[in-house]
Structures are given as C-alpha cells and as structure tokens.
C-alpha cells in the first residue's frame, strides 16, 4: 500500500546519503496520527498487544522520546525558550535519532514498528505555528515511508472532553500559547487544536492517510485497525510460531505454569512466607 503520493515520496537514499540500500525492508511501519484526545495511543497499544499475541516482533516508538534529544526539548518547554523554528528543529533532531537508532534497524530486521505520531504531527503543528510547509517536507525527507498511516479523526468537543477528564493541566506549547492566540489557556488550546484539525484534513488529502472515525466505540475502531493491518503481516518476523511462555517452557527455562492462576497463587504464598521469615 502506498500511503504517500509520488511527489512527496520519501525514497530512502535519494537525498539522504547515509543509507546505500533501496529502502526495501522486510519489516512494516505502522503509524497513527490525530490530535490530543483522539484515542490514537489507546488504539496503537491495543494493536501492539494483538500483534504480540500472534508472536510477532513489535517495536514501539513515540514522538519526542529520543534519549539524547528529549531533555533539551523538555528544558525548552519548561523554560519557554522554544519559538516556532526551534520547536520544529529540535523535534526533527529527536525524530532523526529515532529513525537511526530504533525505526531503521527494526525494519531491517523484519519487525513491525508501531509509531505513535509521525512526521505528520510536525507538518500539522509547525505549519499551525507559521513554519513554511514546503521546507518542513524537505527537512523530513529522510523519513521512512510508512506501510500504513492511520488518522484518528475526532471533533474538537469530543477530544477536549476526553482530555479534561484524563489529565490535570494543559501545557503551554500544546495549547499553542506561545503563539498568543489567547491569554486564556483553555481558549488557546481550543483555537490551536482547531487549527491542527484543519491541518490534518489537508494532510489526509495530500498524503492519503487512512481516516478512522474516532468517535466510534474503542472495540469497533480496533476491528477496523486490524483489518487494515492484517494484509501487511505476511512476511514479518515471528518468534518461531509458538507463544513466548510455551517457547520458554520447552527450553526448560520457566515451566509451563508461569502464567496460570495456580502459579500466581504459589508466588503469593512464597512472598508471604519470605515476609514472615524476615519479620
């Protein structure tokens, strides 16, 4: 499945001289996008569990999580040092490090890589901050083309309701307060997220992202996700066709009952006994 249209095709090796290969990897890259509160993280988590239950090797990567870059980003956010361009560049640095250290090696090994947010997050957020759209596409031209890109579309009211239930405080940058839309944080958040929805609509068209109606029940969405994912799983890496506990058991490493209720009870009793003998 080609997700990105030809004119923006991210052909590895074309402009980024570090990878002499042709961009053909045995692994698969599945990415999810959507505004805060769209439920995409829940969906990719469920997808990962489903893939793991089939003994497929999955690697999870998250936006803004590079071990060598994220502290700088965090400092920039906490101390409010970031401006639209530095916000954009530091996130590109984080992404580059994850492509190099996580995404590419896993794809070459044949794993399923699950990415919570991808370049489209940068395209939406940075463009909403006035960064040049064409420049963003060229900066991120080293990104690996996803095998599947899912966009979880949700109306603003629904996402805001989910967020206000689920977390204590909105951040300065996630509310777009650096842009001076409004001095009221909630109002600013609403305005900024609205702009992001517009950007995502345009990106869906430009890059052919698969849209999932994120107002549906979680289980219904997950069924749709799995239907898109299933055809991609033919050649990906599995752990020898048996469940992990079973495989370990056969190798004589843990025994068969490691996950059974009996085994769990036994562990509890052992812990109690140990506590008693300590006291």
């Amino acid at each position: 499945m080609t997700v990105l249209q030809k004119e923006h095709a991210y052909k590895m090796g074309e402009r980024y001289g570090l990878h002499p290969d042709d961009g053909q990897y045995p692994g698969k890259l599945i990415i999810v996008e959507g505004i805060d509160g769209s439920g995409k993280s829940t969906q990719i988590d469920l997808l990962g569990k489903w893939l793991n239950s089939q003994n497929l090797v999955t690697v999870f990567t998250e936006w803004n999580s590079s071990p060598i870059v994220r502290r700088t980003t965090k400092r920039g956010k906490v101390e409010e040092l970031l401006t639209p361009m530095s916000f954009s560049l530091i996130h590109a640095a984080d992404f580059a490090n994850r492509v190099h250290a996580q995404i590419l090696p896993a794809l070459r090994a044949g794993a399923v890589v699950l990415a919570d947010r991808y370049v489209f997050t940068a395209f939406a957020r940075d463009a909403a901050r006035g960064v040049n759209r064409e420049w963003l596409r060229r900066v991120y031209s080293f990104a690996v083309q996803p095998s599947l890109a899912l966009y979880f579309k949700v109306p603003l009211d629904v996402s805001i309701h989910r967020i206000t239930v689920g977390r204590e405080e909105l951040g300065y940058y996630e509310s777009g307060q650096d842009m001076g839309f409004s001095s009221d944080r909630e109002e600013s958040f609403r305005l900024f997220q609205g702009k992001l929805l517009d950007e995502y609509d345009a990106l869906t068209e430009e890059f052919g992202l698969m849209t999932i109606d994120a107002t549906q029940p979680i289980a219904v969405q997950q069924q749709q996700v799995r239907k898109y994912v299933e055809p991609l799983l033919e050649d990906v890496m599995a752990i020898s066709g048996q469940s992990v506990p079973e495989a370990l058991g056969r190798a004589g490493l843990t025994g068969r009952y490691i996950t059974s209720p009996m085994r769990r009870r036994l562990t509890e009793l052992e812990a109690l006994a140990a506590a008693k003998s300590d006291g």
Partner: protein
Amino acid sequence: MNEVRFYGHTPPGAGDEETPGRLVVVEGTDGVGRSTQIAMLREWLEAEGYAVLVTGFRRSELAATGIDRAMRGNTLDPMTLNLFYATDFWDRLEKNIVPALRSGMVALVDRYIFSIIARARVRGVSPRWLNDVFEFAVVPDIVLYLDVDVEHLVPRVLSVRQLDHWESGEDFLRGPDLYQNFITYQSALIDEFRELAKEHQFVTVDGRGSVGDVFEALKTEVRKALEGMS
C-alpha cells in the same frame, strides 16, 4: 541600510526588514586560529567605534548543554547531530544575531552554517538536504575563510593540545591510529570547506601566515564589508 536576505524562505520570527548592522563570518577548520583572530578583530572594531556581538558554535541557551551531553555518549548519529546544531544555530540567529543586526551592530560569528554543513557532508549526509535545512540562515555580508592545508594544521594543533576524538572523526572512522584518523578527517573537511568556498563566494585568506599577517589581511576585507555603515 542593508536588507536581511535568507538562503531560502523567510522563517517565522526573524523579521525581513532592512537592517543597519553587518554580518561578518569567520570560517575554517579546527586549530586554524579563528578564535585568536576573532578576539583581535573585536578589539579593533570596538576601538574603531563599532558595537560588536561575538557568537560561536554551541553557545545557545536552548541547545548547547544538550549537544555537549549528546557528544559525550556514543549514540549520536550525523543526522541528529546536524539537526541539533541547526537548533543551536537558529536559537542564536533569532535571539542574538538578528537582533544585533537590527540594532546596527557588527555581528562577528565564529563558524556559521558552513562548519556544520562541512562536518555533515564528510559524514555522508546529502549536500542537497543540508542546503534545504539551512535555508533559514541569513546570508552573511562576508564570509572570511581561513584556509590551511593539513600539513600546516598538525603542528599547530599538537603544539597546543592533544588530538581530540571528534576532531579526528573517530565517531565514524575506524582503526586505532588516532594520528592517521586526524589526517584523513581534517583533509576531507578542508576539501569540503574549499568546495563550499566556491559555492558561496567565501573570501579565502591564507591561514599559514603569521598571526599579524593574517590579521592585516582580514582587516582589509572587513573594512570593505563595513563600507557605508554609519
């Protein structure tokens, strides 16, 4: 008045109005004597009555510490380092250099985007992509390039300190021979600088001369670049 020109699009936050200041860049490889010359240029310019801002690599409030920390580890790849440098550069461009130009100062910059680009090119990063990334940079009024060949560079560096891991390209060159790695890396870097000098019309100054001779040559060029400044 000077108009601020960018290599590509005008980035948000930099302003695109006319500016009375001048942007003077000094480029050259490690150990060529840039810092000495910049210190002397600053003193001379201030004595001539100019307000001077000096800024250099890895000095931004935002990213300097993070880059230093990342360079102490061993997981830093060329693309990430390049974008980290780009962040550091932008932070200084936006918060130091452009304001200095707008207020009528001479911004004297020790290594600009060209050192970043040369280092990344040597490590195999696409020149076209690098030009794309750095198109947000302001086009300097003059780029003074201190050129030296590797034979003259070695004694200069060795007489001051021992050879450095990064300056010997040991993040990507293999083998235990530090001296050979330094030669290989610095030769490749100098080749890239000479290539960039052609692409971007640097004013090349022979860095093999005495400190005094180089300084005189630089002064002549800077004087020309500052002509018409009030």
